[in-house]
Structures are given as C-alpha cells and as structure tokens.
C-alpha cells in the first residue's frame, strides 16, 4: 500500500513540476480526441437520419382519380397489386384521398392560407418501400410507364444516396482523423514523458543507485502518461457531449432532420475513448521511457564519469 502511495505521489509530483508541458499534452489529447469523437457524432447523426429515411417511404406514386381521365374504377387497386409483385419492392400500401388530406393538415398545421383548399384536390397515392434504395430509378421508370393511373412520381432516394455517400466519406475521414490524431496524441505524450524524465534524471539516477527495480522507476511515468491521456479523453468526451446536447436542443425545430444522439452512444464511445486515452498515455510513456531507461543496468545520465 505504501509503495502504491509512493508511486502515485511521485507521479503527482512530476505532473505538478512539469505543469505547462503536462497541460500541453492534455490539450493535444483533448483536441485530437474531440475531433475524432466529433466526426463520429456527425457520422452517427447522418446514420440516424438516413436510417429514418431508409426505413420509411422511398417512392410515392401520385395517382389520377378513378372514374375520370380514363382511369376505371378498381385501377388503383390493380396497380397496387402489380407494384407489390415487383422484385424491387419490399412493401407498398395505398394512401387514399382522406389520408392525404389528414397528412396535409398535419404538415401545414397553423398555416391557414395553405389549409384553405378543397380536400378533393389532393390525390391518392401508392407509397413504396424498396428492397434496396439504389433501385429507385428502375421503379420510378416502371411507374412512369403507367401513364393512365400515375400522375407524378416522387422519390427521396437521390437525397438519401447523397447522404449515404456523405456518411461514407465522413466514415473514412473520421477513421483517418482518429488514427492520425491518435498517433499525434501518443507522440506528444511520449515527448512529455521524455521531458519529465529529463527533468527528473537525478532522481532516476539515485533510484537506480539505491536499488529501485526498473518497473518501480517506470510506474510513476506510466501513471503520469495514463493520467494525461485519461484527463484529455475525459475533457474531449465531455466537450463533445455538451456540444451535441446543445446542437440537439437547437435542432428541435427541424422536423425533418434529427440532431440528437442517444446517451447510449455517448456511454459506449465515451468509455472507449477513455480507454483509448489511457492506453495512448501508457503507450506514449513506454515510448518515452524506452530511450532513457533502455539500459537497465546503467545508472542513467548522472553516473560518475572518468576512471
């Protein structure tokens, strides 16, 4: 117990003595992990939103009214059955004029001038969910061939595809950024530890002289690096969490786009980032230590010279 306390005390003394360098290393970890976690959050927001779109309606075929313009009674039902038989279609359902009016009222609630129309002008529609979003152009083409029944075809697929490709780019960017910045954080911690060892070279030399084991000498530096990594990672997780929470509040007015990320996402990634921060600190410390303490049987840079 006294040994653990001694090691912790030594680590804290070193942190305090090199406070400026330590703050620099913590900031480096904080900035790099904030950017990496920020990229993950943006990616998650895009994923959530594209998932919402993808799980909804992909294609809407607005229909001409039955009993007029050469559309016989029962033509809508016949078309629905046909569409449901297409291999690109996962599911499809009929959305009649009454439902269309209800949806319209919901969408434009509070905008009286837009609601001041005759409900009968809104068309019935067939709403289609595709097996694969990329098949939208083929389905659109087939629907447009039904010139008698189909008045217009609308699809959100192009927007979804754009969001998906943006999401893929962000995935690659986020991963690349996390790797590059993670390496930068490790290198910065390694440098900090080297400076800390240099600042404490006399102590290290004396520790070796009085018979401290190599691990006993290393542990305070490893603890120091771990603390730097942990604090930097904790600050990054906290900052991104605060930022995302505020973004979600600001985005509450956007009905079509969710800016909210689940708490579970933060618990999972926050924990992983803390582990990564601590590991980066330990790895950085080991790299920093390797140069100065590689020669385990020397007494360090302060050994007596001459003979």
């Amino acid at each position: 117990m006294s040994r653990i306390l001694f090691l912790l005390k030594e680590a804290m003394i070193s942190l305090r003595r090199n406070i400026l360098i330590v703050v620099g290393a913590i900031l480096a970890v904080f900035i790099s992990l904030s950017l990496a976690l920020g990229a993950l959050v943006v990616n998650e927001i895009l994923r959530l939103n594209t998932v919402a779109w993808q799980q909804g309606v992909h294609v809407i075929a607005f229909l001409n009214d039955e009993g007029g313009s050469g559309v016989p009674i029962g033509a809508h039902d016949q078309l629905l059955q046909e569409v449901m038989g297409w291999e690109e279609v996962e599911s499809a359902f009929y959305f009649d004029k009454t439902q269309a009016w209800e949806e319209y009222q919901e969408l434009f609630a509070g905008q009286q001038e837009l609601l001041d129309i005759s409900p009968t002008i809104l068309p019935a529609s067939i709403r289609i969910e595709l097996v694969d979003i990329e098949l939208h152009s083929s389905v659109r083409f087939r629907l447009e061939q039904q010139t008698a029944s189909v008045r217009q075809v609308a699809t959100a697929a192009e927007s979804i595809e754009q969001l998906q490709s943006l999401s893929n780019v962000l995935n690659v960017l986020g991963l690349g950024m996390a790797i590059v910045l993670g390496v930068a954080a490790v290198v910065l911690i390694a440098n900090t530890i080297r400076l800390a060892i240099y600042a404490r070279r006399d102590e290290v030399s004396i520790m070796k002289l009085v018979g401290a084991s190599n691990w006993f000498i290393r542990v305070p530096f490893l603890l120091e690096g771990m603390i730097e990594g942990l604090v930097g990672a904790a600050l990054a997780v906290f900052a991104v969490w605060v930022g995302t929470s505020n973004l979600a509040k600001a985005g509450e007015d956007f009905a079509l786009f969710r800016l909210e990320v689940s708490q579970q996402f933060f618990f999972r990634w926050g924990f992983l980032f803390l582990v990564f921060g601590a590991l980066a600190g330990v790895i950085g410390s080991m790299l920093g230590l390797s140069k100065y303490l590689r020669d385990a049987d020397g007494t360090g840079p302060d050994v007596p010279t001459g003979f």
Partner: protein
Amino acid sequence: MIRLDNVTKVYEGGTVAANDVSLDIQKGEFVFLVGASGSGKSTLIRLMLRDEPVTRGKIWVAGKDITTLPKWKIPYLRRSVGTVFQDYKLLPNKTVRENVAFALEVLGRPQSVIGPQVDQVLELVSLADKAARYPRQLSGGEQQRVSVARSFVNRPPILLCDEPTGNLDPKTSVGIMKLLDRINRTGTTIVMATHDHAIVDAMRRRVVALEGGRVVRDDETGGYEAVRAAPAAVFVGGETEEE
C-alpha cells in the same frame, strides 16, 4: 565479501581502465583504492556496482557472480551495496529527511519502518537537528553526511565510496572519515577510492594502489605511498568534530 578475478575493462576506443585486476576483500575490511587520476579507481567501483560490464574476468559480491547477473537482478545487488560519491547526489527539492527516506521508499518499505530507521541514521551522522533543511541550506560536509546516511539507512553489508572527500576541505574530510570508520566498525565492508594522501596515511588501513589499470601494490596496513612513513591513526575511534 568482494572478489575480483583477473578483471579487465576496456572502454570503447580502446582505453584500458582495468587490466587483469585480482582482489579479495574480506567482510568488515576497510580498503582504500589509491592512484592518480585515470589509474582506474572509479572504474573498479563502477564494476563492483555493475554500473559497467567487465570486458574479461569475474567479480563476486556477497558470494554472487555479478558479471553474469541478469539485468533485472541488478537492483537487488544494489540494495546490498551502499554508494557515496564526490558530488553527494542529493535531490535538491527534498529535505534531508526526505533524501534519506527516499532510499527506503523506493524499496517499498512501510512508513512504520522508514520513520525510526531514518531517525536512527540521522542521529548517527549528527544531522537529526537539520532533518527539515534542504541540501542548499547545508555545508559540503553536511551534504556528504546526508549522502552517507542515505547509503547506510538500508544497512547494506558493503559501502562503495568514490572520492567522498574530494570536494571537502581537510577538516571536514576528517569528520566524514570518522563517520565511515564508525560504520566500518559495525561490520560493514568499505571500499573507498581516493587520492587524499593525508586520509590514507592517517587511517592505516588496507591500501590497493593502481597505476594504468593495474594493481601495483596491496598493503594490509599501508600509506598512500609505498615508502612513506605514516603518522599516528588520529581518526580511529574518534568522535565527529566537524561543525
């Protein structure tokens, strides 16, 4: 306690610092290593501490061959060998008490053991009243006494001293030598590298003279020079007179 068998040390660049040195030092002996600068005194101390590997030969310390000692076991060797250097090697940001306690803390001794042991050794070196001072607030002699206290607080059976009086005036040196003599009388083996004629001549202990890395003389109770007559042993059994 310490045995060197045909030990040779050649540094990079070809400098021969120890040349076929053989020595046998018994438990409780006080041995001076004397010789001019560059004769190989400090190298022998460093070889006995396994601070440097030998080029050829064998060294046994407390019955163990330290030339084949794996690196991870070197700290255990150093726990049984105290060291005192010319430049004291004290930590400037720690008090006298903390400097001495440091040697026990790194060995993981509990505070209940460290406290009494540090008090005892500070009494021995007559620095109990200056335990709260920092090294910069002490004279050279006092700093060296702290260094001796730190090297002895763990009660090692062997003490290796490399020019411990090199930075001190003659009067202060006498105080340090009296202290080392007291420690030697507790049964601790002491090997001291020095080129201080007066001390060696006064102590009348075993003298190993080195020249160009070779042992040129090994007298059981000699002086610094082979033919020099030694004055009376004024240090032996005396009390510390310094400050």
